[in-house]
């Protein structure tokens, strides 16, 4: 009996195939049990394990294409994204490890690569929010649930602008207008912050909410400084 059990263990170790897809499926299958036994299911990817690094002019000058930096709220997880998509003022930025975020006028309109992506959004006053003293606006966020159906959150938002807010970027202190947006949809609420060059639609830095599962991210629009430092 012991020999048989040992043989089985050896067999488990020697399991193999010539087919990459079968290997991928079997490995994923065993990982389900491994995750149950060893730890929680993995909800993070390598994008969350990036180490904090110093961002300075030298670092920025390494890039010969527009970049933005995404960061978790506590600043421990960061990712650098390059612009890959552009269509009718909608910019899509992509990281090397497979997340993308899309903006219109500096406002997040969609994400891809997160566990609960912002699939679509419909937002009022997107083009005038920072220039025409918008106090209230509405937005619909759509997500995909586990059965490939939409979950829709209808937010009512209030905006508060605070002028002359100093913001530090690299060695520069820039006067910005800080817009604080508080949004509520039933029991779900979030607060976004936008640091905008006065009287423009140029968002230099922002804190924007993605979803309940993924929370908020900090976005540094460093491309605004490329070639200008």
């Amino acid at each position, binding site marked *: 009996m012991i020999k048989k059990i040992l043989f089985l263990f050896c*067999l488990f170790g020697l399991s193999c195939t010539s087919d990459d897809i079968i290997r991928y499926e*079997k490995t994923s299958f065993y990982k389900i049990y491994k995750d149950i036994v060893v730890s929680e299911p993995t909800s993070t990817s390598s994008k969350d394990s990036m180490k904090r690094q110093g961002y300075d002019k030298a670092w920025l000058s390494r890039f010969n294409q527009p970049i933005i930096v995404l960061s978790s709220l506590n600043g421990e997880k960061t990712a650098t994204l390059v612009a890959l998509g552009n269509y009718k003022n909608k910019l899509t930025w992509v990281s090397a490890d497979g997340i*993308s975020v899309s903006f*219109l006028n500096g406002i997040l309109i969609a994400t891809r690569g997160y566990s609960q992506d912002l699939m*679509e959004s419909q937002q009022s006053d997107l083009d005038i929010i920072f220039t025409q003293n918008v106090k209230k606006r509405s937005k619909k966020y759509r997500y*995909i649930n586990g059965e490939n159906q939409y979950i829709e959150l209808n937010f009512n938002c209030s905006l508060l602008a605070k002028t002359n807010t100093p913001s530090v970027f690299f060695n520069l202190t820039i006067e910005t207008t800080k817009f604080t947006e508080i949004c509520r949809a039933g029991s779900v609420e979030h607060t976004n912050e936008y640091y905008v060059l006065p009287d423009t639609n140029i968002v230099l830095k922002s804190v924007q909410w993605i979803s309940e599962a993924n929370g908020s991210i900090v976005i540094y629009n460093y491309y605004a400084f490329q070639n200008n430092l």
Partner: protein
Amino acid sequence: MLKNLLVKFLTLLISFLLVNINISTAKEKEVFETPKRLNTYGMPGTIDNPSAEAFPEGQLSVSSSIFGGTIRTNLSFQITNSVTLSFRYARIPQQSSRYRGYLWDRSFDFHYLFSKEKSIFPAVAVGLRDFIGTGFNTGEYIVMSKSLGSRINISAGMGWGRLSGKNSYNNIFGLKDRKGINSGEGGTFHYDHFFSGSNAPFFSLSYNASQKLEVIAEMSSDSYDTEVASPKGFKRESDFNLAFKYEIAQGFSLMGMLMHGNAIGLTGVLALNPRNSPYKSGIEPAPMPLLNDETISRTQSSMDSDIYIRTAELLRLDGIVLLSINRNKRFVDVEILNRYYSDVAQMIGRVTRILSKTVPLGVKFFRINIVDYKSGYPISQITVERESLRKFELMFDGPSNLWKNVKIENSPGAINQSLSLSEGPLTWSIYPDVDLALFDPDFPINGSIGWEAKLAYRIRNSTTVNSSVKQPILTALNDIKRGPKPGLPNVRSDFMYYYRDISTKPYISSLTIDHYYKPFRNIYGQINFGYLEMMYAGIRAEAIWKDMQKPYAVGIDIARINKRNTFGDFSILDKSYSTIIGTVYYDLKSNWSAQLDAGKYLAGDYGATFSLSRTFNNGWEIGAYATLTDVKFSTFGEGSFDKGITLKVPMSWFTGKKSLAYSKTVIRPIAGDGGARLHLDDNKFLHRNISKYDGKSFKDNWIRVYR
């Protein structure tokens, strides 16, 4: 005296519940799993008693209870918002039983939430216990439940049958005599006795001490006559049961209980809801963004000049194999192989994104043909307008707007022998293999563990030799005590001889030449020749007609086979059989699919199988089937006719990553010879392989096209 007191108490209680002002203000947040709501029967309830509740729609629960010699293992499914069904396998202490003093019994329960709790009105539910089976646990109930604040819930009801064992009195409907059940061979539906005979009240009170902890007391009307009479049972010293339920984690709870003042017990509940994927939209990397014309031109100038090479490289990163690409004026025709994506719309989204980057700007339409890896069939052709893809990418309602510019139809061609479907003709694998056999009273959970080696050789794209060799290393299946059933040719019920003779030796599980053909646009066919399964060898042919735009399909499956030697070697016995079965497949609305098979089965019996499945739009399927043939129930033997529960679980649900892999389980309570068919792998059935690329499959998850 006691009876009168109880009636008065019940009347008072109902009156109180009806006139009580609503003090329950806590609105239930949307929840997916509620493992604390299960009783020991796996149904909505407290401890043993039912309650007028329901689980969240789609909840699948596995629960097991043990107390006083009784074991109940339940598989429960909330089939709609109001209907709960449960299949149970129970061990019951019984003095006269020949299985070490226990009776093993299968049964089904039905629970219908008639009305939900509203302001002053309590929720009302009716239920049938053990309504298909031997009727050993048979009983019916009407129950009302009411919340008193956010912490207290009270239930009161009336039970019949087994639920009227104690404190009973005359039938409130005037149905005095409860008819005995002539269960025959079991497994049939009985209804003559419903709500007849004496009835008895039952009550429950539960208190949520915290979010995780619930304390329960109940007065049960179940007399447990059989269990109490058995030395392996328990003493029923009181009408009351006490318990605490504790939710250890989401979807997992434990209940410790004191049953009838004598027996200490434990219930474990594992609940999950296929609707509630832990990974929501999935954790795959973001797709390629769409570019404006200027950027496309600039990008293409820096790419490989060969459109096939540059497209294939990018598609490979997304796990998609490009087989061919041809430009035809404003169209580009591509053939692709999908071995990863169960969300086919997402796959098409990724293919079109890449094509929009790699093919010249003069191309206005992408025509994508999906080729099946196994059979080589070109199955579906999807045509997407290039500009619409880009225009709607980041727009609200983008997917539904894009859908208007998408065409899905059957691929026009036959199997293309010139395509290279795999890197080499030979594929192999060696992996552990587990074989389970349930519901044998001698060994209720039995099985073997060993290894399985698979070898496949692709002769042509349409022809493959497939083989599987297995060897059980640790097995108890070679010691099954039961013998074959009498009355019919032993086409399936003698399976134990195969396990016995194979024991721990290697055997040929299957060895076939599989040939696929597609003579017309909508017709797909296959011929399998060789050792089809452990018990049979011969030839089988299947053909189906399937229009990708239609929700239905028809098929025919013919087999001429011989019994294999019980040692699993190459020898074949001189026992030949044949089956001719026609099938209609229908995708019903609201995530249901139905299948009707009719014809001649293995034992020469004629009849039909009806299957109904709740399909979730993420690959999960929970269904049931029943086969009725011209074989009498008494001839079929135990169980009366063939029936079962099917469960299909997609792996991508657990991992959040794209995958076509899934596990399918058929829970077949009784193996009989009536209504028997070949036991083939799921991927040997054409409809399943083809329908995953039909119009409905694309439409159902089209919102993922931009994921």
